[in-house]
């Protein structure tokens, strides 16, 4: 029995078009937000959920968190069906939306937390212990008596995270948690999530467009497109499918002689630098380096893999998303 089990989940929305001239009724288009999506997640996993806008990520998060009822299919989280057993289910989950605040806007955040304590019926002792832990980990001590509206985006995000974890949920949904955050805030947030996952064993399901989030946090990644599951596995495996080209950037002391360079690689000149692009599957890296050394005395050389965002963009293109 897995912690989360999803089987053949389907959900479609009817979107009405604008009424055309001369027609009495409006045409409806059906959008299939999810089509036969199945997967399982074990307790303590940190799963990344990616896909272009409109792929069905938010819909599946909404179904798994109990906001939406699917058209068909089964889902269970820790033995409960989210949309049938809403109250018991949400007692055990926490949800954070990167673009929407759930705490109260005009009051000090500590007041919000006290109300959340009542909403989730957390005992006083547990609340105090947990709040201290979270305030410590999220560095909120100096902000506890500040209203949410006076905080920066990064501070708000930390405050939201604290609020969603006060009742010690076993499962945490994060919908684009790092959106709009600066580099320092992002790093801190990731560090916190890793710690929460490792030390408390909290299962985390994360949707994001930031591939750095996935690379830094997730052991497993799932790609969704047009409502279908397209990939489920480890990030390096996903990348290796699309990461077919490498580039080497070299600079020589004297003008080099590239006559020995194989034809299968391409050569570009950029100022004093030469950029060589090749496919490591066809041409071993060791060989190309040997040939580059033959071409002249190298002053500097860097090898780079492609930028993750480019890879994902290519993947989306190839999957026709």
């Amino acid at each position, binding site marked *: 029995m897995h912690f989360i089990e999803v089987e053949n989940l389907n959900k479609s929305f009817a979107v009405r078009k604008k009424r055309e001239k001369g027609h009495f009724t409006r045409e409806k288009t059906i959008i299939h937000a999810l089509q036969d999506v199945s997967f399982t997640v074990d307790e303590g996993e940190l799963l990344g959920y990616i896909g272009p806008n409109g792929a069905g990520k938010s819909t599946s998060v909404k179904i798994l968190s109990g*906001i939406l009822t699917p058209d068909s299919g089964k889902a269970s989280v820790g033995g409960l069906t989210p949309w049938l057993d*809403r*109250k018991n289910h949400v007692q055990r989950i926490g949800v954070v939306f990167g673009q929407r605040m759930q705490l109260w806007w005009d009051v000090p955040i500590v*007041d919000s937390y006290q*109300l959340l304590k*009542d*909403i989730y019926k957390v005992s006083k002792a547990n609340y105090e212990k947990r709040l201290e832990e979270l305030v410590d980990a999220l560095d909120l001590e100096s902000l506890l008596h500040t209203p949410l509206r006076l905080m920066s985006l990064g501070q708000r995000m930390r405050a939201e995270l604290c609020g969603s974890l006060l009742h010690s949920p076993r499962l945490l949904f994060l919908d684009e948690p790092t959106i709009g955050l600066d580099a320092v805030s992002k790093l801190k947030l990731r560090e916190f999530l890793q710690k929460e996952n490792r030390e408390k064993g909290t299962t985390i399901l994360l949707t994001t467009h930031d591939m750095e989030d996935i690379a830094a946090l997730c052991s497993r990644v799932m790609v969704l497109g047009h409502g279908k599951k397209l990939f489920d596995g480890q990030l390096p495996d996903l990348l290796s499918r699309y990461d077919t080209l490498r580039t080497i950037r070299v600079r020589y002391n004297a003008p080099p002689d590239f006559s020995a360079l194989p034809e299968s690689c391409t050569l570009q000149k950029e100022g004093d630098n030469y950029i060589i692009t090749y496919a490591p599957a066809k041409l071993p890296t060791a060989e190309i380096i040997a040939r580059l050394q033959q071409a002249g005395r190298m002053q500097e050389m860097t090898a780079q893999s492609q930028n993750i965002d480019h890879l994902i963009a290519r993947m989306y293109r190839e999957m026709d998303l």
Partner: protein
Amino acid sequence: MNTIKLYLHSMKMLLKSQMQYPWSFCLQTIAQIVMEGGEMMAVLLVVNRFQALNQWTGGDLLFFFGIMSITFYLTECFGRGITGNFAALIRSGNLDTFFLRPRGIMTQVLCHAIDPRRIGCIAVGVAALVLGCRQSRVIWTLPKIFLFTEAVFFGMLLILGLFLIEAVFAVHSVKSIELVNAVTYGGRSACQYPVDIYPGPLRVLFGTLAPFGLVLQVPSAVILDKPMMGIDGFLAFLCPLTGLLFFAFMYFVFQKAMKYYRSTGS
């Protein structure tokens, strides 16, 4: 019990957040007193000009006005979650947040807003009621106090029920605000006066469809010792229960609408 505790806690916090802007609060409260005071002046003018309306004296009219204002604005003050803008609740995504918390949706809707500025209108209502009682020489007895409390309480439920109509329409993404305002705010304006001065259709509307007549006015008439439509005694104590019935029905419809919301998505 736990729900009531949560409600009180929420109200306390919301009040605190309103008080973050004390000047705005003061000015708006004053504006409301002026507005509601104007309505009371209208009643006073009618009384001055005509002395009486059918069997109702000036004091009686003030009493009707007072009980309506108190009931309506108490509801708007403490039930702001429902009487406020429900469509905005859906648009902003707040309703989704309510589904993520282990409490009833209706509880959370009620817990999410308060409108303390209405205290000004309530004060005007109380003033009208006191003035009306003095002019009509109402003698308060224990049953009358009970009847008054009962009428106000079930009147509040009735008003909440009427506003729920708007919420239900909003879930089905139908704009209904003007239509529903006709029975809510329109009902308040019309039923500041005893319904038996109106022609038949209006009497039916506010007697059965939006039963302000039964919930608020039949008890008021009994308190004034001038029973309306011949309803007196034990029956008068039963009439306000129509407010509860109305609310219960709308509560049921609202729950259905919430099911619909979850299956159609946003």
